[in-house]
């Protein structure tokens, strides 16, 4: 008998509209506990928007998002999640104070804040920079700190919005190492990228989005071996899916 996967997050026919434009269209998906989910698609597909909807930074215009958490935690699902943005936002304080600030918002006492901060800075290789101002770090180090700050919260789900965009290969490799370590520690990763080699390195399952629609999803090995959707095939081949191409009109707008 095959065990049923544990559900984590359900997106039920969600739509998002802004300035009269439908940006996410009737999107449904069930994220399960375990695999690293990578959302891919061309620029403007709605990947970041989808993450922000999942993380409740935005509310869907239609449909609903359901977290499958314990009954006692239903009222405060925000505390199960964290998000790292494409452009790291560093508070105007030291590296360690950035992490401690996030922990203080969760009501964690000072001694535990210190201990956890030391721990995550050690795990991300930032201990030697603990007393530096976060804003003097390099872009790659700032992104690592953003990951450390999110990791310190011990979220069940970590949303990552193109965390390595505009990073060089070495910094990208370092960030990917941290992402894998966070996943190995038991945090679910849901991440967007348009970097296909990175998606192949990190993904357990892939969601392909184009023009606000989920066109294909499934295990990464199956997807990269040969997607069934023509737009996904074109995307893997490196054909840009421009908004105004005649074939994209087939999607019904």
């Amino acid at each position, binding site marked *: 008998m095959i065990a049923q996967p544990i559900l984590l997050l359900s997106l039920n026919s969600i739509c998002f509209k802004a300035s009269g434009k439908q940006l996410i269209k009737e999107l449904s998906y069930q994220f399960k506990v375990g695999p690293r989910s990578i959302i891919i698609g061309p620029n403007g597909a709605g990947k970041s928007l989808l993450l*922000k909807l999942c*993380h409740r*930074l935005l509310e869907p215009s239609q449909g609903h998002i359901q977290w499958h958490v314990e009954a006692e935690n239903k009222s405060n699902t*925000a*505390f199960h999640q*964290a*998000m790292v*943005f494409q452009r790291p*936002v560093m*508070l*105007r*304080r030291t590296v360690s104070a950035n992490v401690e*600030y*996030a922990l203080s*918002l*969760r009501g964690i006492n000072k001694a535990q804040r210190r201990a956890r901060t030391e721990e995550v800075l050690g795990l991300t290789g930032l201990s030697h920079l603990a007393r530096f*101002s976060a*804003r*003097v770090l390099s872009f790659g180090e700032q992104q690592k700190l953003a990951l450390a700050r999110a990791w310190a*919260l011990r979220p069940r789900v970590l949303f990552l919005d193109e965390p390595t965009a505009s990073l060089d290969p070495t910094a990208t490799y370092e960030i990917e190492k941290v992402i894998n370590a966070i996943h190995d520690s038991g945090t679910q990763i849901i991440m967007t990228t348009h970097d296909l080699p990175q998606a192949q390195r990190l993904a357990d399952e892939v969601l392909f989005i184009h023009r606000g629609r989920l066109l294909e999803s499934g295990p990464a090995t199956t997807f990269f071996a040969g997607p069934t959707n023509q737009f996904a095939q074109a995307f893997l081949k490196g054909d840009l899916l421009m908004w105004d191409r005649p074939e994209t009109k087939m999607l019904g707008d």
Partner: protein
Amino acid sequence: MNVFFDAISLLISADNDLLMIVGLSLWVSLVAVLVATLIGMPLGAATALYKFPGRKILVVILNALMGLPPVVVGLLVYMLLSRSGPFGVLGLLFSPTAMIIAQTILVIPIIAALSRQIIDDLWVEYAEQLISLGASPTRRMMTLLWDGRFSLLTAVLAGFGRATAEVGAVMIVGGNIDHATRVMTTSITLEVSRGNLALALGLGIVLITLSLSINAAAFLVKEAAENRQV
């Protein structure tokens, strides 16, 4: 030229009257700026962060009030504090407290409007991160005020500049009474009308030196801190 040397010799001799006027000026302006900061800064931050009915109207009013005519404020405070006014019973008219009230009213819109702009700009940068981390609305405001502290210092300095340079309102509500409510600006006006240019010039030199020193100190503090924090 003689007037200039007389003014310098008055300053060097640390004339008692002059010191008293300078002391009272500083006291009135500093207290007014402190009170205006405590009211204006959270008000500016709140108008930047919170959406409430009439917010846009409040922003327009705050911006417009930055150019509030001091004599009109002086007149309003005079009417409120005079014997026949609603607060006449407090007996505050022609006292330093009345001057502090008038200056506070003049400085609040400056600090509030400048703070709103500073916090608004910072909020654009921080919004998603702070919401994502779960910061409550109050905590967001505290964080933005703290992280924007060096820029906000400029708003406070602008308020201090307005307070120390103000003459119309304090003249009306303070009365320019010798050894009681005479401050540098009202004293300069009086001494010029009396023809005592040496004392007027001496006070003018103190006023300008004070303003330059405070701005220079604040600039240096801001520079040093920003180099450290970035």
